[in-house]
């Protein structure tokens, strides 16, 4: 979870009142923060939410407190005048191709505010931007930027030069990666590219090299009265806009004038930052069911307004509007959580749970556990691999084409589908354990999802993967027989067939009846090309049996 340090005196000046020592511990509960410690004027806050970047600054915390105590009622809107600055975005290929930028004028930057700005920038790029891999942010002294037409493009790493922060001498982009501390830290994000992203002003002076470092000239922000240029570059327009919006709100809350900038992608133009309202309808009953009590409409509206929502009650529905920077709100339950925070978790009375039942395992779980014991009894070592995986691992490396249940909003390519086979996951396990002695004979009893004409089926597979010099089909078959015979399957039949993942002539389909229901499995020696795709050097034989209890 993110942790931030805030200046107590700075916070008190933003809130316009003093915080009592006796209230300090509970003071930040409405902001989902816990006080980790106090060191002089510094309050160390542990934010118990990794999805609320708007809270990762002193300004965000102050805003949330103001909402809670009624100083800000409902949804506070932010609007930004459009400036005449324009960003011309070049062909960025696939490197941080989305941009959001703004101009901030009349900023009075104090020591505290400067620390807060740097921390907020680091926190947003580090946590929300996943260590700058998804977005990075730069702030510049506007007065040192020439012209109003700025360029963001890919510059040649060997010829484009500038002096990075902390250096007087100009370096090529390639040299910056090699010699600058930030280049060494984040250089891997640009590995494999010949051209690197750069910002340039109208006179052709390089302002920065995202996501690595600013220039030592315009990229240096200092204490005092300032006009600033802020830019965010990243992998989606929504993400860069939210990051910019959060920073701009912080400036606006401190009385600065924020102006929007036009980002010109050639085919389309976007004005950033843009503040928008999102809408969600939730049934009142659903709210009552979740919070465990019924409350009046008036109270409900009050509770939601204290969390920054605009609220309307339409018959049995509660219609809420919330700002687009609340990226954590994805489902009604997120709004209900806010209602509970507003009520105060600490005020909920303890109640005995009236349950008259005993716990137990599902028959399916008992069955799977029994299969696991059987696997151990066969002398195999049990492992558990992840059910969410990538298409590349399940199909690409295995040299097959197949359908899989796909995740609508995957966080990364490595967890985009639910596995259809456990074998590829075992091969990856073996790759990671090549330093361990052989034989490595492992098994897993786990779920897979299969999509067919009838819909999606969840199945329990028993997969054994045997890896050592000299492993063969015969040994895999012997173990498969051990499992099947112990389960007393009937009508067992082996058929030779072709499968790209296996060596031709060393693979068979096994058909059998488990409790009278037709099932099938596969057994064979893994194709050396597949092993090569996984970077495995030791031969592998596997069997995978469908042992779903119907």
């Amino acid at each position: 979870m993110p942790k931030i340090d805030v200046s107590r005196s700075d916070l008190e000046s933003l809130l316009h009142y003093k915080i009592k020592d006796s209230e300090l511990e509970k003071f930040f509960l409405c902001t989902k923060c816990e006080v980790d410690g106090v060191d002089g004027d510094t309050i160390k806050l542990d934010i118990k939410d990794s999805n609320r970047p708007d809270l990762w600054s002193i300004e965000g915390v102050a805003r949330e407190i103001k909402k809670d105590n009624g100083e800000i009622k409902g949804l506070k809107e932010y609007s930004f005048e459009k400036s005449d600055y324009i960003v011309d975005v070049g062909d960025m290929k696939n490197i941080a191709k989305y941009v959001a930028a703004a101009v901030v004028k009349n900023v009075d930057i104090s020591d505290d505010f400067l620390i807060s700005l740097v921390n907020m920038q680091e926190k947003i790029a580090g946590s929300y931007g996943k260590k700058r891999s998804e977005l990075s942010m730069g702030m510049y002294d506007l007065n040192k930027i020439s012209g109003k037409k700025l360029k963001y493009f890919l510059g040649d790493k060997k010829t484009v030069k500038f002096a990075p922060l902390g250096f007087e001498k100009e370096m090529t982009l390639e040299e910056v990666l090699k010699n600058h501390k930030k280049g060494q830290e984040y250089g891997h994000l640009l590995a494999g590219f010949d051209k690197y992203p750069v910002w340039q002003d109208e006179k052709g002076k390089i302002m920065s090299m995202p996501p690595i470092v600013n220039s030592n000239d315009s990229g240096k922000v200092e204490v005092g009265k300032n006009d600033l240029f802020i830019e965010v570059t990243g992998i989606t327009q929504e993400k860069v806009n939210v990051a910019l919006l959060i920073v701009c709100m912080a400036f606006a809350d401190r009385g600065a004038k924020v102006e929007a900038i036009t980002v010109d992608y050639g085919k389309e133009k976007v004005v950033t930052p843009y503040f928008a309202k999102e809408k969600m309808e939730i049934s009142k009953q659903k709210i009552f069911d979740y919070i465990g009590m019924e409350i009046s409409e008036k109270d409900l509206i009050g509770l939601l307004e204290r969390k920054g929502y605009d609220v309307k009650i339409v018959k049995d529905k509660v219609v809420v509007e919330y700002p687009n920077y609340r990226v954590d709100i994805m489902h009604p339950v997120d709004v209900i959580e806010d209602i509970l925070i507003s009520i105060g978790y600490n005020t909920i009375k303890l109640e005995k749970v009236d349950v008259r039942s005993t716990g137990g395992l599902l028959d399916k779980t008992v069955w799977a556990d029994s299969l696991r014991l059987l696997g151990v009894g066969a002398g195999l070592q049990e492992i558990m691999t992840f059910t969410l995986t990538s298409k590349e691992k399940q199909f690409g490396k295995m040299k097959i084409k197949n359908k899989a249940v796909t995740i609508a909003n995957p966080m990364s390519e490595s967890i985009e589908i639910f596995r259809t086979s456990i074998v590829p996951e075992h091969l990856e396990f073996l790759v990671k354990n090549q330093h361990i002695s052989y034989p490595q004979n492992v098994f897993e009893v786990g779920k897979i999802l299969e999509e067919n004409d009838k819909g999606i089926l969840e199945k329990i597979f028993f997969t054994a993967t045997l890896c050592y010099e000299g492993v063969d089909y015969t040994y895999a078959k012997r173990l498969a027989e051990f499992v099947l015979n112990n389960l007393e399957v009937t009508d067992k039949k082996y058929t030779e067939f072709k499968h790209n993942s296996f060596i031709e002539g060393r693979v068979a389909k096994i058909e059998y009846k488990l409790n009278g229901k037709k099932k099938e499995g596969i057994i064979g020696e893994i194709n050396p090309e597949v092993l090569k795709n996984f970077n495995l050097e030791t031969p592998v034989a596997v069997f995978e049996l469908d042992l779903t209890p119907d």
Partner: protein
Amino acid sequence: MYEQIREKIKGVKDSFVLITEKAKGIFDSSQIKDLKFIDSAALIDIKNDKKTFSVGAVDSGFFSDSFVGFDFCFVKISGSVFYYKNGKLEENKRFPKNPLAVFFTPDACLQKEEFERYVSITRIKQELLLARQIIETNDLDYFLLDGSLIPHPMDRLKKDSEIYKEYQELISSYLTLYVAAEKKKTRLIGCVEDSRSNFFTKKFGLEKFNDSIFLNAALNKKQGVNFFRAGEENKILDDLNAHKKVDLYVGYVKVNDYDLPLRIEMIDPCKEAIEVIYFLASHTKNYSYPSVIIDADLRAKLSPNEINTVKAYIEGISNIQGIKKLRRNRRPF
């Protein structure tokens, strides 16, 4: 509680002093002289000859458990043979090459105590079977058993026991082994790891202690008590004698300063056996047990992995067949 434990242990230590005094000169006492030692000498000073001989041994590892409706044990047996020439190990053989655990389950539904006896008898029967096979297929001077050369009194079952036939088979196994050893001129030696015998201490009014502790005070390193005939009144011997005349002889050997004398048994005794055991057990300063048995023991020992593998299999199959674990093994708390 800790005070009580400390006092008990202190008392044991104090009594060692008393035993040491009583043990002085016992080999000249009438109580000892009355015993019939083979060739009359009671105390033996062991010579450090570089011996040439062959010796074998067996040992076993086991695990037992109970499920609803059935009890089981699995037993792993291993045997070793060492060939010495002029005091140097020339060759060793192991039987079988890869010892495997064998599953046993009683036919009848047994009481807990009877099942414990079943496990003990089954294990020893398997040891005796492998011992006989090794003796019959090799020309050995000596063969060592881990424990007594006759059944343990605890394993002597009453005639109405559900598993009385197991005891009968055990008697038969011992007798068959004696015959096989006699035929191959291999001398059997039983090595009792932690003997509780109190034959000597009874004679000297120290019944609270066992002979090993008493003789530890009486013997110096490299000394032994010559073989003498064990007690006349022994029901186990009676059971054996009902089929074949068997006499059991007992001796002791003190191998080093830091371990108690080791009780050894023979049915065909010879003084050299004491020297052989001394030779085989004198490899470390503070542990006296024949190396050939240790070798067999190490290979017979069931590893936690072996136990878990078989247990997991039994549990898995029992689950699949709907057989539950005992209530005590599936407590939900």
